[in-house]
C-alpha cells in the first residue's frame, strides 16, 4: 500500500489557532459603518389567522428605518422541493407555530428595533391548534395548511420482496412502538448575518453550513441572477443540520431592508430564540414489526413511521426517505416494507440533524432485534453477526456496499474484556447496577440529494510555490478544512503549511452543496484531489520538458520534485513553480477538479439506489451504572469500532466519533424539548439537558480499515455513524442493568424508576 506523507497523519487543525486565540470571526462579529439592526416580531399563538397588522406606530419611532410584513415578499415561499415550497419569509395570512416571525423592524440599534417590534399591532383570530401528529392525521383535525388534507406533509413508501411471506416463515414475530425525542441540533453559534444590497447585488456574511442553498434561495426570492448573489462564509460555530443548511426569516428580511435603505443590515438570533423557533430533530413514532427464525435470522421487517413535522415541510422529504432507504443496512433483509408519514402540526419545524432520518428507524430495529434475540436465547452480538452483511453487497432496494467492517467491528468488541465480564442480568450489589450494551449500525457518507450536486475545487499555484485552494465546502466545525488541505498537500508533495484554504465566497469559489450527510471529505475531498492532480500534471509537463523525461516519471515529495530513478535531476517545488510561472509570456497554473463519485441513478420516489456514495459501519459497546433507586444513569465507558474506510486525519476522526457518540448519548438519556400546546417549556440550556463534559464517559476508539474505492484514499464518513450507534447501545446497556427494555427516548431517571416500580408491583 502507498506510503502517504500527510494523509493519515495526526495533523492539528488548520483553523485551531485562530479559533483558540479568538482571532476567527464569526457572522455575529461582523459590523459596518451605518449598519442597521433587524429584529423580529413573533406570534404569541401557535395557530392563528392574521386579521390585520398596523405598523404605523413602529415606523414613527425615532431610529426606525423600516418595517416589513409578510406581504412585502409578494407571496414568495421556499422549500426543499418545488412542490413543497410552503414556507414564507414572514407569516402572511396565518401563523402556524408559536413565535413564527410575523413582522420585522430595521433600526439604528438593537434596543430601538426591539422597542419598535412592540409597537406593531397585530390582530389575530386564534385557531384551534394540533400538536400531536397522530391526532393531526385524523379526519376533522385542524388543518395547519388549508389545502393539505389530514395534515400530510409528505409520505414515502417502500415495498420490497413480500413481507407477509417473510413473516410467515418466521418462528417469532414482534410488533413494538418506539419513539424518538424532540432534540435540539445543538450548535453554540446562533444564526446571524450582515447583509448588504448595492449595485453589485446582494452580499451577505452569513452563518451557514450550506451557503450555496441560501445563494439559490436569495436569488429566487429577489429575482436576481446568481452572479449578483454573493455569500461570504465566516467561521462557523457548528451546525449539525437543519437551520444552518437552510435560510431563515432573518436572512430574507435583512436583505430586503438593505435593498430599501441602502445600508448594511445585521441580525443575530439569541439562544432563547433559537430554541423556541429554529429547526430541530423530528420527533418520530415507529411501529416496527420484525420476523425472526429460531436461529436468529431475520426474515422480514415492516415499519410505519409517523413524524412530527411541525408547521412547514423544510427538508422533511429527505428525512422520510432516509428513515426507510437506509433501513436495509446493515442487516440482511429479504423482505421489507416501509410507510413513512410526515405530519404537519403547530409545533416548531422538524428537519435534518446529524444521523439524519436513520437514527430513528435504526434505533427501533436494533432494539427490537435484540429483544427478539433475548426471547430466543441468542447472544446480542451473535444475532448481529448472523444477520450482518458482508461486502460487496447489494440490498433489496439496490443500495450497493463496496466495503463493510461491521463483522470485524462486532468481533473485536466481543473479544473485549468489558463485554466478557457482562453480567447478563446477575443481581446488583446495593442500588447500583452495572450494564453493558451493544449496537451495530450503518450510515451513509457522501450524501446525495435530489437536484444540484455539483462539487468542485480550484487549486491555484502561486509563483513562490505556495497554494491557494478554493473550495465551496464549508467547515462548520467538523475539521474538514484540515482534511481538504491535507489532500491538496499530499498530492503536490507539500506540507499543510504550504496550502491556504479560501473559505466560501460564492463570487469566487466553485459551487458545492455544503456540509450535510457526511459528504465533505468524500465528495469535496475527491474534488480537491482532482484539482491538485491537475496542477501536478501541468507542473510535471514543465519539469519533464526541462529534464527531457516522461512526465509520468516526475515525483512530487517533501517539497521537492525529482525524476524517478534519477535523483540528481531534482529541484525544490518552489523552483519548479517559478520556472512554470515565468515561462513564456506568463503561464498561470490553475488546477480544477470536481467530484465524480456517486453519480448512479437514484429513485427518490421508490427508495431505490444509493443516497450515499459509501457507507460507514459502527459497532459500539457502552457501559452504564444505573442507580436503581433514583434511576440516575452514569454512562462510564464506550468502545467504538468504526469503519470509516481510512481515517485521513485520525485526530479528527476520533473527535467526530466522540462528539457523535456523546450527542447520541444525550438523545438517549437526557435530551427532549418539553412541549405544552406548541410552547417549548425548556427553551434554555439550563433546562434543556445536553450532556456536559462531566457526563462524558471514557471513549475508546478502534479503526477498522476497509479502504473504500469510492472515496479519496479509501475514506468514508465519520461522526454521523456514531450518532446513530449510540442511542441503541446506551439503551441496550440500560436494559442489561435493569432488565427493562425502554422503547422511548430519552430514558430519564424518572422513567427508569417508574418502570422498575411497575415491574415490582
Amino acid at each position, binding site marked *: 500500500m502507498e506510503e502517504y506523507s500527510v494523509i493519515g497523519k495526526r495533523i492539528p487543525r488548520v483553523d485551531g489557532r485562530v479559533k483558540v486565540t479568538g482571532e476567527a470571526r464569526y457572522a455575529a462579529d461582523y459590523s459596518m459603518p451605518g449598519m442597521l439592526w433587524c429584529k423580529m416580531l413573533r406570534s404569541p399563538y401557535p395557530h392563528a389567522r392574521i386579521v390585520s397588522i398596523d405598523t404605523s406606530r413602529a415606523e414613527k419611532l425615532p431610529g426606525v428605518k423600516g418595517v416589513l410584513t409578510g406581504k412585502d415578499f409578494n407571496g414568495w415561499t421556499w422549500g426543499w422541493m418545488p412542490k413543497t415550497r410552503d414556507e414564507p419569509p414572514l407569516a402572511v395570512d396565518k401563523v402556524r407555530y408559536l413565535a413564527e416571525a410575523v413582522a420585522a423592524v430595521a433600526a439604528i440599534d438593537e434596543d430601538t428595533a*426591539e422597542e419598535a417590534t412592540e409597537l406593531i399591532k397585530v390582530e389575530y383570530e386564534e385557531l384551534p391548534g394540533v400538536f400531536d401528529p397522530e391526532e393531526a392525521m385524523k379526519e376533522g383535525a385542524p388543518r395547519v395548511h388549508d389545502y393539505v388534507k389530514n395534515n400530510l406533509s409528505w409520505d414515502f413508501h417502500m415495498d420490497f420482496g413480500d413481507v407477509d411471506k417473510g413473516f410467515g416463515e418466521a418462528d417469532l414475530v414482534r410488533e413494538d412502538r418506539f419513539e424518538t425525542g424532540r432534540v435540539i441540533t445543538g450548535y453554540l453559534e446562533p444564526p446571524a448575518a450582515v447583509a448588504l444590497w448595492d449595485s453589485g447585488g446582494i452580499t451577505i456574511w452569513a452563518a451557514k453550513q450550506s451557503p450555496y442553498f441560501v445563494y439559490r434561495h436569495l436569488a429566487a426570492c429577489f429575482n436576481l441572477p446568481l452572479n449578483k448573489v454573493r455569500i461570504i462564509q465566516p467561521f462557523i460555530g457548528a451546525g449539525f443540520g437543519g437551520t444552518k443548511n437552510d435560510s431563515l426569516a432573518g436572512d430574507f428580511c435583512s436583505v430586503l431592508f438593505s435593498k430599501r435603505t441602502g445600508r448594511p443590515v445585521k441580525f443575530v438570533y439569541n439562544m432563547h430564540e433559537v430554541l423556541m423557533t429554529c429547526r430541530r430533530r423530528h420527533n418520530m413514532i415507529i411501529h416496527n414489526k420484525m420476523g425472526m427464525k429460531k436461529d436468529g435470522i431475520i426474515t422480514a421487517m415492516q415499519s410505519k413511521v409517523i413524524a412530527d413535522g411541525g408547521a412547514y415541510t423544510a427538508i422533511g422529504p429527505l428525512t422520510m426517505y432516509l428513515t426507510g432507504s437506509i433501513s436495509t443496512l446493515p442487516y440482511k433483509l429479504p423482505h421489507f416494507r416501509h410507510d413513512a408519514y410526515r405530519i404537519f402540526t403547530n409545533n416548531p419545524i422538524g428537519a435534518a440533524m446529524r444521523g439524519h432520518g436513520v437514527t430513528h428507524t435504526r434505533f427501533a430495529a436494533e432494539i427490537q432485534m435484540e429483544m427478539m434475540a433475548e426471547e430466543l436465547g441468542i447472544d446480542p452480538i451473535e444475532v448481529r453477526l448472523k444477520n450482518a452483511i458482508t461486502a460487496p453487497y447489494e440490498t433489496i432496494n439496490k443500495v450497493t456496499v463496496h466495503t463493510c467492517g461491521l463483522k470485524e467491528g462486532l468481533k473485536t468488541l466481543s473479544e473485549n474484556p468489558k463485554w466478557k465480564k457482562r453480567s447478563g442480568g446477575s443481581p446488583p450489589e446495593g442500588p447500583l447496577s452495572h450494564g453493558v450494551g451493544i449496537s451495530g449500525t450503518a450510515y451513509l457518507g457522501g450524501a446525495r440529494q435530489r437536484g444540484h450536486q455539483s462539487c468542485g475545487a480550484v487549486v491555484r499555484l502561486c509563483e513562490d510555490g505556495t497554494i491557494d485552494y478554493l473550495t465551496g465546502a464549508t467547515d462548520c466545525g467538523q475539521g474538514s478544512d484540515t482534511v481538504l488541505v491535507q489532500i491538496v498537500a499530499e498530492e503536490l508533495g507539500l506540507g499543510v503549511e504550504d496550502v491556504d484554504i479560501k473559505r466560501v465566497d460564492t463570487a469566487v469559489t466553485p459551487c458545492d452543496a455544503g456540509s450535510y450527510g457526511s459528504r465533505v471529505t468524500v465528495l469535496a475531498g475527491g474534488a480537491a484531489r482532482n484539482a491538485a492532480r491537475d496542477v501536478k500534471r501541468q507542473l510535471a509537463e514543465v519539469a519533464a520538458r526541462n529534464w527531457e523525461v516522461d512526465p509520468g516519471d516526475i515525483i512530487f515529495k517533501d517539497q521537492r520534485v525529482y525524476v524517478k530513478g534519477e535523483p540528481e535531476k531534482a529541484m525544490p517545488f518552489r523552483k519548479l513553480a517559478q520556472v512554470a510561472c515565468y515561462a513564456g509570456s506568463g503561464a498561470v497554473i490553475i488546477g480544477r477538479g470536481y467530484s465524480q463519485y456517486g453519480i448512479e441513478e437514484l429513485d427518490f420516489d421508490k427508495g431505490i439506489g444509493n443516497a450515499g456514495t459509501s457507507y460507514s459501519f459502527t459497532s459500539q459497546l457502552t457501559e452504564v451504572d444505573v442507580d436503581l433507586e*433514583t434511576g440516575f444513569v452514569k454512562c462510564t465507558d464506550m468502545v467504538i469500532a468504526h469503519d470509516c474506510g481510512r481515517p485521513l486525519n485520525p485526530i479528527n476522526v476520533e473527535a467526530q466519533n466522540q462528539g457523535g457518540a456523546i450527542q447520541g448519548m444525550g438523545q438517549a438519556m437526557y435530551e427532549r424539548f418539553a412541549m405544552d400546546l406548541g410552547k417549548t*417549556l425548556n427553551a434554555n440550556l439550563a433546562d434543556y439537558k445536553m450532556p456536559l463534559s462531566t*457526563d462524558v464517559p471514557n471513549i475508546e476508539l478502534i479503526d477498522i480499515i476497509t479502504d473504500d474505492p469510492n472515496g479519496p484514499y479509501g475514506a468514508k464518513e465519520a461522526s454521523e455513524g456514531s450518532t446513530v450507534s449510540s442511542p441503541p447501545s446506551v439503551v441496550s446497556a440500560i436494559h442489561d442493568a435493569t432488565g427493562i427494555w425502554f422503547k422511548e427516548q430519552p430514558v430519564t431517571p424518572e422513567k427508569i424508576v417508574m418502570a422498575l416500580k411497575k415491574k415490582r408491583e
Partner: protein
Amino acid sequence: MVTFYRRLPKMGYVKPGSLEEALELLEKNPNGRYRVYAGGTDVIPKLKGRVIQSPEILVDLKGVSDLDHIDFDEQKGLYIGALATVRSVETSPVIKERYPILSQAAGSIASIQVRNRGTITGNICNAVPSADSAPALLCLDARVLLYSKNGGERTVDITDFFKGPGLTVLQPNEILREINISASPENSRSVYIKLSPRSRMDLAVVGVGVLLTKTNGTFRNVRIGLGAVAPTPIRALKAEAMLEGSEVNDDLIINAARTASEESRPIDDHRASAEYRKMMVEVLVKRAIHQCL
C-alpha cells in the same frame, strides 16, 4: 407577546461605598423600585430575560467594603457576609471543618465560574425552592441578620425567612447583612445530597440535607432540610421528631424517610413529576441518614 433574552433594560445604577449609604438609599424605596444585588447571577439574567420588571435603580452592593467576610468565633459561631461568594464558602477551611454540609451544598451550585461570582446570601434571597444552600442552612439552624437605616436590625430564623417561590420576609428597606450559624453540636454529622439529571452543574430536582448526632445508639439533634419539593425550602419536622431521641434502627429510618416524603409538597413540572420527587425524598433522606451514621 413573545420576548426573548435581551440586553439589560435601561435603568439607574448606584454602587454605594458603605452599608449606611446603601441603607439610606433604600429608605426611599417603599415600593421596591430599587433592587439590591450582589453577584448578579440571578438578577441579571432575569432582567435580560424580562422575567422581572426592571427596577428604577439597581443597587450594586459590591462597592461596600468589609461585607465579604467569613468569620468564626467559638462562642458566637460563624458569620457569612452578604458579599461572601459561594466559592469562598465552599472552600473556607473553617466551614469545611465545622459545617461540612454547607461547604458541600455550596460546591454543588452551578459551575466554578458562577460560584466565584454569586453569593450565598444571594442564593437564599433569590428564594427559589431548589436553592442548594437552603437545606444546609435549615439543618444548621442559621439566622439571618437584616439591617435597615439608623441601626435598624432584626434577626430572623432561616425557617421563617422563606415565604414562597421568590419571596422572603426581607423588606424593601432592608439588606441581609450576614448569616449567622451557631457552633454545630459536638460530634454531629451532616450531608447534602442533590439529585439532578446530569452529574454536575445542574439544577436540583430534589435536594436533601440531614444533620444529626448519634449518642449512645440514639438519634440526637436531628435536622432534615428539603429543597425543590415545596414552595419554599422546608424542614421535615415530623420525620425529625420520629427520629429524635429514638434508638437507631433500619425500620425507623425507613419510616422517617417515608414521613419526610409525605411532608413534602412538590409540584409536577417539566423537570420532574411530583410523584417522582416524593419518591426521591424518601430515597435520599434514607441515604442521607445512613451516611450520617
